[in-house]
């Protein structure tokens, strides 16, 4: 009883402390300016016509702040490698889940897979025209694989293909950056022709859609690997040490 009281007291003190902290920050935040002029974003918007990309966010992500995206892709790659390090099954044995093959589930999930992958590809390819792009589309593709895994936990992805997609697309991204250095003497520059008149068409924006497609392949394969590790961890329970 006494313990419980102490516990509650601690909670109350902590919540009071954090709310006091936040109230003081809130007081300070009332001085934040909210209608700025001449931000970097305004300059980017005025320059954005030159990139011939209809979606300004895409051109910021892949072009104006391109090296951020290389770093972001690297962060995902590192996280995938870390998860593989933690959950890889070299040291343990799994038992096979007794999986009752349901015809409808099997066919239904496989049919849905095509639709979802198609949607993912659409989101990736239209990244420079409409909201979305490599990251979102890649994750959509990974969720298609999640569906497949949920329908059939014993399914295995071909790791060699995923590793290939992951490594080669990552390397291709860096290679594009380096090729651009040789072509126009700027790392990650837009060295393909991108006439402004093409804005809004599917083939426009020079390297921007190409980069987003590469990012989409990379994110899709990495997220699929992450999903596969977590599903395997969840469904294929370990055989207890006899």
């Amino acid at each position, binding site marked *: 009883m006494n313990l419980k009281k102490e516990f509650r007291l601690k909670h109350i003190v902590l919540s009071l402390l954090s709310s006091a902290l936040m109230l003081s920050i809130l007081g300070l935040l009332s001085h934040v300016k909210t209608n700025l002029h001449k931000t970097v974003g305004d300059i980017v918007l005025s320059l954005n016509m030159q990139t011939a990309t209809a979606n300004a*966010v895409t051109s910021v992500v892949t072009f104006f702040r391109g090296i951020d995206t290389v770093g972001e892709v690297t962060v995902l790659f590192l996280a995938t490698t870390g998860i593989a390090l933690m959950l890889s099954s070299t040291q343990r044995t799994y038992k096979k889940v007794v999986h009752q093959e349901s015809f409808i589930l099997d066919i239904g999930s496989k049919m849905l897979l095509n639709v979802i992958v198609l949607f993912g590809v659409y989101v990736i390819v239209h990244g420079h025209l409409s*909201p979305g*792009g490599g990251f*979102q589309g890649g994750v959509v593709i990974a*969720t298609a694989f*999640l569906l497949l895994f949920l329908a059939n936990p014993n399914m295995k992805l071909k790791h060699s293909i995923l590793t290939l997609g992951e490594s080669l697309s990552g390397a291709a991204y860096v290679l594009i950056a380096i090729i651009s250095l040789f072509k126009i003497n700027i790392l990650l520059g837009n060295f393909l022709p991108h006439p402004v008149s093409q804005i809004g068409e599917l083939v426009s924006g020079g390297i921007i859609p190409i980069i987003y497609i590469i990012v989409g392949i990379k994110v899709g394969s990495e997220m699929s690997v992450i*999903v596969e590790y*977590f599903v395997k961890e*969840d469904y294929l329970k370990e055989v207890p040490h006899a």
Partner: protein
Amino acid sequence: MIGITILFTFLAILSVAFYAILSKDITQSVILFMGVGLGSVVLFFIFQAPDVALTEAVIGTGLSTAVFLLGIRHTSIDKEMES
């Protein structure tokens, strides 16, 4: 109209987040956490940020909830879930 929508979405997010933190059941708090993501998607859409809304929808609401739900079985001692 937009102002009131923002206000009520915020209220919804706040209450959902509060219950997600306080809930004793981990599964419940993961599902409630998904509610925070959903509310954020609505707000991002109102704030004219469709890219962020789409990202939050597929990552914050979709995949991270899935990863959480798949992961919690092996990080909790809940007897019910073991059976």
